[in-house]
């Protein structure tokens, strides 16, 4: 029998039980991204003693807390800058950054572009739910033109940010975009991102039924 990586088995191995239950709402896609990541880690056999999860502020930035590994839950937007320091101090560590659209492309955009430009060896997993979910559904830089948010009650008049195109232009070594409704390919994509030396970014479209859904 081949070893089947069920979510249940992976969760037992990689989740930090003390932190259960999560803060995520019903219908949130963040847990799915965590599943993809666990699958990829298992496939690669990453040493969890040598893997550090870094995040900023927001719902997606809570993910490192649920993983049984070193985690640095930092300030809003700054995860990639913190991660740069960790990698510099100990290049043997694998660095995975969990971030959201607001954290990564709004307040943290400057750190994102420069880490991509410098080609710092890290994998950034950006979960894009097009909203500031944790604070209740305010307008995000990735929100489509015309979309409704608590801070755009008459419709968004700004053009959205395409983060994949941005980091591609900066020479990122691996860039991918998926939604959390893709069942298998995203797992392989996270694996490819982790395997790729240098800066990689994987974006996941993810629903936010509570905050974003409320406005729509």
């Amino acid at each position, binding site marked *: 029998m081949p070893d089947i990586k069920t979510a249940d088995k992976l969760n037992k191995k990689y989740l*930090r039980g*003390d*932190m259960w239950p999560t803060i995520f709402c019903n219908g949130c896609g963040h847990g799915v991204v965590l599943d993809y990541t666990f699958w990829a880690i298992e496939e690669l056999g990453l040493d*969890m*003693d*040598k893997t*550090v999860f*870094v995040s900023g502020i927001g719902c997606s930035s809570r993910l*490192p*807390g649920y993983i*049984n*590994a*070193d*985690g*640095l*839950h*930092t*300030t809003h937007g*700054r995860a990639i*800058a*913190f*991660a*740069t*320091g*960790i*990698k*510099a*101090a*100990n*290049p*043997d*560590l694998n660095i995975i950054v969990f971030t959201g659209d607001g954290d990564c492309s709004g307040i943290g955009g*400057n*750190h994102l*572009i*420069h880490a991509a430009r410098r080609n710092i060896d890290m994998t950034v997993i950006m979960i894009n739910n097009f909203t500031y979910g944790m604070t209740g559904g305010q307008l995000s830089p990735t929100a489509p033109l015309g979309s409704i948010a608590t801070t755009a009650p008459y419709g968004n008049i700004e053009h959205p940010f395409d983060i994949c195109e941005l980091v591609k232009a900066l020479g990122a070594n691996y860039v991918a975009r998926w939604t959390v409704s893709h069942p298998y390919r995203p797992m392989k994509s996270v694996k490819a991102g982790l395997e790729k030396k240098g800066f990689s970014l994987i974006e996941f479209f993810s629903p936010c039924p509570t905050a974003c859904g409320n406005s729509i």
Partner: protein
Amino acid sequence: MMYKRDPELIREVLGKKVQFILGDIACVYGGLLAGCSFFGGYPITPASEVAEGMARRLPRVKGTYIQMEDEIGSIAAVIGAAWGGAKSMTATSGPGFSLMMENYGYAVMTETPCVIVNIQRTGPSTGQPTLGAQGDMMQARWGTHGDFEAIALAPSTVQECMDFTVEAFNLAEKYRNPVCVMADGEMGHLRERVVIPDEKDLKIINRVPATIDKDKFIPFTNSQTRNSKVPDFPTFGTGYHTYVTGLTHNEKGFPATDKQPDHEKLVKRITTKITDDIDKLTNVEKLYLDDAKTVFVTYGASARPAESAMEMARAKGKKVGMLRLKLVWPFPVKEIQELASKVDKIIVPEMNLGQIVHPVREYVEGQCKVVSAPKIGGEMHLPHELYKYLEGK
């Protein structure tokens, strides 16, 4: 591969034992001597020479220099590097220091050892970039939001720029708190003679690494191996699987954001770990205090003209003394209280409109007269200007 401090290599890179160098470069030397292996910085006058000095020397001692995209990123990378196992520092001036304030608090809350050199210039805002000031003394103490204890040193000579940077690392490592070296444009851009201490005369303190069983280790509580409120340090990559957050956290490091006792317990520990040691920390220089009736309470660059004014007065037989705060934060409460009980007047010369004069007044508690002697605009006090304060003006 992790950095390992190599005293011989460091001395080879620093060069001759006696040198005539800038204060900014002396901060570089202090960092290297202390075993700093990561510098994240951003150019800013009058602190740029610290970054330049590090960029030139840090790779040669097998450390890492990175010019970050801004000062927010600089302090973030410095904190990240500390968790990766490095002794790390940055250097900046007022505008950059303002940008660092949020992550300064993050370093406090996560008990991250790191050093921030602030070569102060006049403000507010862009101010006078090339001119010295002491306008960020209160910002170092209160600049980030919430309750915390600051540790800050203020050098008055180029030699002290070096020595206090070493000391800043020692205090950061000992207390697991960010430590500020509050120099100023006058010190940063002054050239003076410095003597590099021999290895045997150099006191180096390193953080205590976590060593106990991983199952039994509790990352955010009193040390489990020593009698200390400072927990042992679980460097990332050593298998402790520590979760570090700026949120109020419990002893295990997990968010505990909805209960009052959790917050009080944490914040009281991370503040009293410093204030409990106030007597050990207090670091002052006393000049002519045995018989002095009028005393300058000074720190940093402004101690120099104050000392000259004191000597002028002594030459005329006036009973004038000086108390110089080498460590400004935590504030030397007992020293000020004792002084106030013995003297008639305290004069506080500062290159700001009056900052450290406030805690002086607070702890003098009316026992003697306290006079602020401010001077702003990037010029140091002249000795005769301060001498006038001795005549009652």
